[in-house]
């Protein structure tokens, strides 16, 4: 689409001709700050606005100076806009990257009430009172004023765009990729690399940030070679465009963001807005190019001052002339070609101001031959025009003559900084190259290969050669054959003059305030000077003190100029100043894309049991227990939690209840040494446990603190079934495997998780036996034949089941284990058979109350990782003979103290008062000191771990950990919570059926 068309006559900049990227047959309507503009398909918002003569697109952060478009790409510090509206809105979008579509609406940010009339521009006048870090030095008078006035104001001033309102309506996807060679950058060098790697048979992924490969090189002498290369690579490699590699991580792991449909109108977006690519590459070639830097001189931030390369990009890609009467200010040759291109497109060139003197190279010669005025050894010392460049003042570097030159655009180029970000992120070292006046990769063997402008290979010829070399090196490093040599036939480029490191135009200190280094954060030469003056000489200190490089552009244009000036100010050698560390991401990445699908309902798996649907149908309220959904209680016609739990508890105590205990961890432990193994992991002894018998066990970590508990049953001489708490199922299995594999490989033991295989249905209550009898006719279930803590294989409702007579409620209880697929059938059979006995499903809350009435602790509720088995009063379950995990720790002085916090029961003097769980225990002697809010601490004796109203006892009960609790039985203490102190008496933990006749009957 290079067909030229007549330049329209609007104020500059103007669309001079079609560009490589735009389709001048397809006008696109966009709106900026409420005004309608027409761009072309392929335009960025920036190019469209420029073509429409829009100069001011934003305001700077601190001084609210009017700002125009500086660049043509991702390095843009000024042109931040709020894109779209409502939930679709995106803050801080870069106009220089956003591809326009019909109906796009964008608004400028950080101004009030409007872009043209921003009242906060007044800060510009106060600039001299607001140097770097001024807030550290003031607002010190009054804490109150700081809290109420100053800080809120500072906060109000902060930030650019606004967060969208409402949840994100769009979708994000994630993909994984594996490849032999990853090539980052689809410019000429990247193309050459990819082509070489493909040619040697490697699996190649090529990633380019722009919509097209070899962006804007249509005019290049290598056009033909490029077109061929693009064809080949698109065929042989995986090519991702509109995709930014933003992170380089360990072991060849890279993350990239693909803008899948941001360039399409809302209604045309298919499914995914953005896609996160996670790539593991064996070899990497970085061809990330270089970033042009501004020159530092007074008012270098005025709208109409452009990076020279940007002016070239706007012309070649979009056919936009940034000015009709142009001055260029440079320290290198590249600018000359740009200026000539602008001239050929119809712009008048007022002058090229070059800081270098005695230029002899081809570029300069060419310009002079074109009749362009070249001022060697000159600099720009001022820019006229507030909201649009009207002219510049130039002066000879040797302090000689000054001159005012009228112009409507100023191109500047301070040279090029290789985009070393990814190279540095993954640990690569940088080295200063005086020839390029820039930091370049100092490549070591393990580092990625580098090609193109990234390592100073400028010019198409050098880029192709270097790219090819890098690509084939990457492939051969993997043992692939070297690709057949293949480079382009290109005319030699004329020998040029070297760029000159030039960090600032010498100006009076008073003028430094107008010399901008970080455009977005308004940090200036004066700020850097001040920082150095105050002793902030390390680049990290300057960065942090002046906020240089803290903007959305992360200092892509400004950091190097800051560095150069630090070096000058400190008399240090730039080569010895390390740039501040490069961090991911290379460009800002959408949170939603990073989160992928693991958010909302899919944030974490929901685990359900075989009986879940039944619980739902029964109207259960659910509790999250780890990843599991467990029935919490089953409210009947409008019951509250308490009413339902009371009903469920009484049903268990008086008739029979049924509980889904499937979430308990189950591990089958098999082998000749199984019993010996249990002896080591449990605190109690297991060798003598008979086949068919169950036993309660406690597990400690090596620090002696309780880790898990449960009943384990001997199914056969060499086979046990261990049960764990729901939350610890995986942790316990890992724990067992760890010890077996790492410490005791000699033990003949294998562990197999059967948690999901077996569903567990608990029947509890005085009539449990009758219900089970209906399901297993002809099986002897009496205490004689099926005693407490024993196990039998029983056919239940026609299903081979493992039935355990164990109880967590203190009632006569059977736990029926059947395979997942049979659970629903057996459960429903029990419900049917149990109807006659008033069977009642109960949930975790009732279970907690019932076990509390019996004083059974729950690991994780009544313990918190600081409690030993002895603290729980379970010395009976702690062997004194054998060694076990954690035993030695119990003998440590503090752990063996007799007055540790110990597990006791509490009965409130007012039986109707239920102590809030977590309430802190205060002794009689200290209760008088409790005066909330507390000016000084009150000694606390412990806390309430569990507390309920017991329906069967008709009173409240509580369990607590109390200092020296065992010896304080009978003492009255106070449970303090919510501003109340509730008197309660310390006693035993078992409140109901202390001798266990109901359980054993």
């Amino acid at each position, binding site marked *: 689409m290079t067909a030229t068309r007549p330049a329209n006559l609007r104020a500059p900049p103007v669309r001079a001709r079609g560009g490589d990227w735009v389709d001048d047959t397809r006008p696109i309507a966009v709106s900026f700050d409420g005004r309608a503009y027409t761009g072309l398909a392929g335009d960025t918002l920036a190019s469209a606005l420029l073509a429409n003569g829009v100069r001011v697109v934003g305001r700077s952060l601190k001084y609210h100076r009017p700002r125009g478009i500086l660049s043509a790409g991702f390095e843009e510090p000024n042109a931040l806009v709020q894109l779209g509206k409502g939930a679709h809105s995106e803050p801080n979008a870069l106009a220089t990257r956003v591809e326009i579509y019909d109906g796009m609406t964008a608004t400028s940010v950080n101004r009030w009430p409007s872009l043209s009339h921003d009242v906060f521009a007044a800060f510009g006048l106060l600039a001299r009172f607001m140097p770097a870090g001024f807030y550290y030095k003031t607002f010190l008078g009054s804490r109150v004023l700081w809290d109420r006035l100053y800080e809120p104001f500072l906060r109000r001033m902060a930030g650019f765009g606004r967060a969208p309102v409402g949840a994100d309506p769009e979708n994000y996807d994630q993909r994984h990729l594996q490849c032999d060679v990853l090539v980052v950058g689809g410019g000429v060098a990247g193309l050459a690399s990819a082509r070489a790697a493909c040619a040697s048979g490697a699996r190649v992924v090529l990633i380019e940030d722009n919509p097209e490969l070899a962006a804007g090189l249509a005019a290049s002498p290598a056009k033909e070679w490029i077109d061929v290369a693009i064809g080949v690579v698109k065929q042989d490699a995986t090519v991702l465009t509109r995709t930014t590699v933003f992170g380089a991580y360990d072991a060849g792991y890279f993350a990239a963001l693909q803008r899948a449909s941001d360039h399409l109108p809302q209604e045309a977006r298919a499914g995914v807005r953005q896609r996160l690519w996670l790539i593991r590459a064996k070899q990497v070639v970085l061809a990330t190019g270089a970033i042009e830097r501004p020159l530092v001189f007074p008012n270098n931030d005025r709208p109409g001052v452009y990076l020279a390369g940007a002016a070239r990009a706007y012309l070649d890609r979009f056919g936009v002339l940034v000015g009709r009467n142009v001055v260029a200010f440079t320290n290198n040759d590249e600018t000359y070609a740009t200026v000539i291109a602008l001239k050929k497109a119809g712009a008048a060139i007022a002058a090229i101001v070059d800081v270098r003197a005695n230029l002899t190279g081809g570029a300069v010669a060419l310009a002079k031959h074109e009749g362009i005025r070249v001022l060697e050894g000159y600099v720009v010392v001022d820019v006229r025009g507030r909201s649009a460049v009207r002219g510049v003042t130039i002066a000879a570097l040797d302090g000689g003559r000054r001159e005012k030159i009228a112009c409507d655009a100023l191109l500047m180029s301070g040279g090029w900084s290789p985009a070393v970000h990814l190279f540095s992120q993954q640990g690569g070292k940088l080295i200063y190259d005086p020839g390029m006046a820039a930091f370049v990769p100092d490549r070591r063997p393990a580092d990625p290969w580098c090609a193109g402008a990234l390592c100073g290979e400028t010019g198409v010829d050098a880029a192709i050669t270097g790219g090819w070399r890098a690509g084939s090196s990457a492939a051969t490093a993997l043992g692939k054959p070297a690709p057949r040599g293949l480079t382009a036939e290109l005319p030699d480029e004329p020998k040029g003059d070297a760029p000159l490191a030039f960090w600032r135009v010498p100006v009076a200190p008073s003028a430094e305030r107008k010399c901008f280094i970080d455009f977005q954060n308004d940090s200036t030469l004066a700020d850097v000077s001040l920082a150095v003056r105050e002793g902030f000489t390390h680049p990290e200190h300057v960065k942090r003190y002046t906020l240089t490089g803290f903007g959305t552009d992360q200092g892509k244009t400004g950091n190097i100029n800051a560095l150069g000036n630090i070096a000058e100010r400190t008399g240090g050698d730039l080569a010895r100043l390390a740039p501040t560390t490069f961090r991911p991401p290379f460009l800002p990445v959408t949170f939603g894309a990073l989160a992928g699908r693991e958010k909302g309902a899919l944030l974490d798996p929901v685990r359900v049991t075989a009986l879940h649907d039944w619980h739902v149908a029964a109207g259960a309220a659910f509790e999250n227990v780890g990843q599991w959904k467990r029935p919490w209680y089953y409210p009947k016609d409008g019951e509250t939690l308490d009413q339902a739990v009371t009903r469920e508890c009484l049903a268990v105590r008086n008739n029979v209840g049924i509980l889904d205990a499937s979430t308990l961890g189950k591990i089958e432990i098999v082998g000749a040494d199984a019993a010996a193994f249990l002896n080591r992991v449990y605190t109690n002894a297991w060798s003598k446990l008979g086949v068919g018998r169950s036993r309660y066990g406690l597990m400690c970590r090596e620090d002696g603190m309780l880790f898990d508990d449960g009943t384990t049953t001997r199914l056969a001489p060499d086979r046990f079934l261990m049960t764990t708490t729901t939350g610890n199922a995986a942790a316990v299995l890992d724990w067992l495997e760890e010890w077996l594999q790492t410490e005791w490989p000699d033990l003949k033991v294998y562990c197999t998780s059967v948690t*999901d295989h077996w569903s567990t249905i608990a029947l509890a209550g005085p009539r449990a036996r009758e219900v089970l009898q209906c399901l297993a006719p002809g099986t002897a279930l009496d205490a004689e034949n099926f005693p407490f803590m024993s196990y039998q294989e029983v056919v239940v409702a026609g299903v081979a089941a493992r039935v355990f007579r164990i109880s967590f409620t203190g009632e006569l209880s059977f736990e029926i284990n059947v395979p997942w697929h049979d659970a629903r059938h057996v459960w429903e059979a029990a419900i049917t058979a149990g109807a006659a006995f008033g069977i009642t499903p109960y949930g975790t809350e009732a279970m907690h109350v019932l076990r509390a009435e019996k004083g059974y602790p729950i690991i994780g509720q009544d313990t918190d990782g600081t409690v030993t088995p002895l603290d729980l009063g379970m010395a009976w379950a702690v062997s004194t003979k054998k060694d076990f995990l954690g035993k030695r720790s119990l003998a440590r002085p503090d752990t063996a103290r007799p007055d540790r916090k110990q597990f006791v029961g509490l009965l409130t003097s007012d039986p109707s008062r239920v102590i809030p769980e977590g309430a802190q225990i205060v002794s009689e002697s200290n209760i008088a000191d409790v005066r909330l809010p507390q000016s000084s601490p009150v000694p606390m004796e412990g806390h309430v771990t569990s507390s309920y109203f017991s329906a069967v006892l008709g009173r409240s009960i509580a369990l607590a950990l109390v200092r020296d609790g065992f010896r304080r039985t009978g003492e009255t203490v106070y449970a303090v919570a919510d501003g109340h102190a509730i008197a309660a008496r310390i006693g035993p933990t078992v409140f109901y059926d202390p001798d266990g006749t109901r359980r054993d009957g």
Partner: protein
Amino acid sequence: MDRVVQGQGPLGDDPPMFADLAAHGLTVSVVPPLGQINLRGLDHEIAQAVAAACNGLDVTGPTNRCVAAGASWSLCLGPDEWLLVVPKHDTNDTARDLAAGLAGKHASIVDVSSNRIALDVGGPKAVSLFSSLTSLDISDLGPDRCVQTMLAKAQVIIHPLAAPTTYRVFLRPSYARHLADVIVDATRFL
């Protein structure tokens, strides 16, 4: 004693949620209950006995190797661990034969038929589905090799039964609905 009723797995037999996937080039179906036995032991001690006891069932390494024997498969899950996948109705017999064959040896035989269910995932988009849920490249795997990994946040065994048309995914029934949701969500963007 075998089951008397055909119970349902977590996804039922033919979940409607999978019906629409075909339109996106993906087929997912629930495999009817399989017999599954977890076998532990050192192959040089047990391999011969197992082969003899269970008509040629091969339980040698290396890890992740899969070998078929008649209608059965052995999936090597670790240096001393196999998942034996047999027809449901053969489960008890196989377990008994194994027990007999391995009597006196250090080995473990556990019926885990309901510990995992299986999904068959196939269709032209199967590979890209996996590429959006796991970092493993399963595209060049054959039926002789399985992988144990995570799909999203669910631990699975992927056995390319007849890649690329059928990848058999074993997973815990308690995670099945979660994984099904994830598959449906991911398929929207394939």
